[in-house]
């Protein structure tokens, strides 16, 4: 089984133009998803997490529609078949 990561258009240049990236499932967490992205697509991953592996302040991550901040943050389990949605928060001027 796999996990689908939806990439915002603003970051597609760091995913080879793909808006959707598939990674292996098999019982992982949000942190595990981004560790995998760090290995495969480091220029994408570093725009979502800082070097402490924290999710950047103005980036929101949803697992099947639920904000991980309302779940267990980066330790939230990501089941096989899930969709991880990366969305820019409302900020800036």
């Amino acid at each position, binding site marked *: 089984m796999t996990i689908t990561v939806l990439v915002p258009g603003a970051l597609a240049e760091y995913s080879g133009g793909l808006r959707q990236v598939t990674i292996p499932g098999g019982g992982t967490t949000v942190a595990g998803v981004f560790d995998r992205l760090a290995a495969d697509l480091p220029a994408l991953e570093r725009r979502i997490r800082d070097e*402490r592996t924290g999710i950047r302040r103005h980036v929101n991550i949803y697992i099947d529609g639920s904000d991980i901040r309302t779940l267990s943050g980066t330790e939230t389990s990501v089941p096989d078949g899930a969709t991880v949605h990366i969305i820019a928060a409302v900020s800036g001027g």
Partner: protein
Amino acid sequence: MTDTLLLAGTRKGLLLARKRGGSWHVEPLALPMTAVYAVAIDTRRRTPRLFASATSEHWGPTILHSDDLGATWSEPDHAPVAFPKDTDTALARTWQIQPGRPSEPEVVYAGVEPSGLFRSEDGGLTYELVRPLWDHPHRADWTPGAGGMAVHTILPHPADQARMLVAMSTGGVYRTFDGGASWSPANTGIKTTFLPELYPEYGQCVHKAAQDAGDGDRLYLQNHNGVYRSDDWGGTWTSIADGLPAEFGFPVVADPRRPGHAYVFPLVSDGFRFAPDYRCRVYGTADAGKSWSEIGGGLPTSGFYTTVMRDAFTTDDADPAGLYFGTRSGDLYAGGAEGWKQMAANLPDVLSVRAAVLE
């Protein structure tokens, strides 16, 4: 006819301008929606390498480089500047990119927020933390100013490869005599107006420092309150504010070819951050700060309610040097003693400016 290249980092992108045949051509904004706190032009290469520190509100900081004079910009897949894991620190942004000496052509330095110094040995593509400054016992006492807590000034000694001086807000000036292995504060004579002690060993809010063209040990410094010169490479600082309309300000720049020539952009005070009389004026000295005079005409003479940030004022490397500054209200000026001209207007607020003559 000289060809001059200018980079202006703004709150929301990068502006590149070329002067050919005496007239400026300003290109469309690059790197939109990123705050470009630092730009650099590394003229040690046959084709200068350009740098831009770009921080996205959403997607974080990076450093891009261009080897085709800004036609394209690149960056490594992995973060060019990143704190090691054991520091438990994340980079906020890079405030300064400083090419090393001509004798070390692949060395480039980066000053960052939170206050740290990084060094590159691959021409500025990837950087490593300079640990001894990061581990300095004073670190716990350094505090952020309004804009953050960053190393914003990096001055490699022009003649001595073992010596380098940095400045940070707040914290003040620190220098090394052993290639970065150890660092000591160098703020004797620089006052503070926001601490109980008027002349502490460190903790000053130094806004910018600049290297004199002739004397490797002579420096100029714009402090939070005060303008200073050092003739012993930061060992002691002496006020050179007499003759200026005010001693507060952010930038100080030195002519890279003419000893004793330096420039500031005075603001009334810490508590009243406007140009005196709301007039836009650059002041310059030709005698290392013994006297000052207004430089050139053609700048707004009334109703000037904006300011010039610490890195938004620079010179090129011509002789005589051209001067350039940008304002927080998004105007960009070029000029000098012969007068000033507006190069661009209605930009996002200008954060950083660098210029160089192209051979």
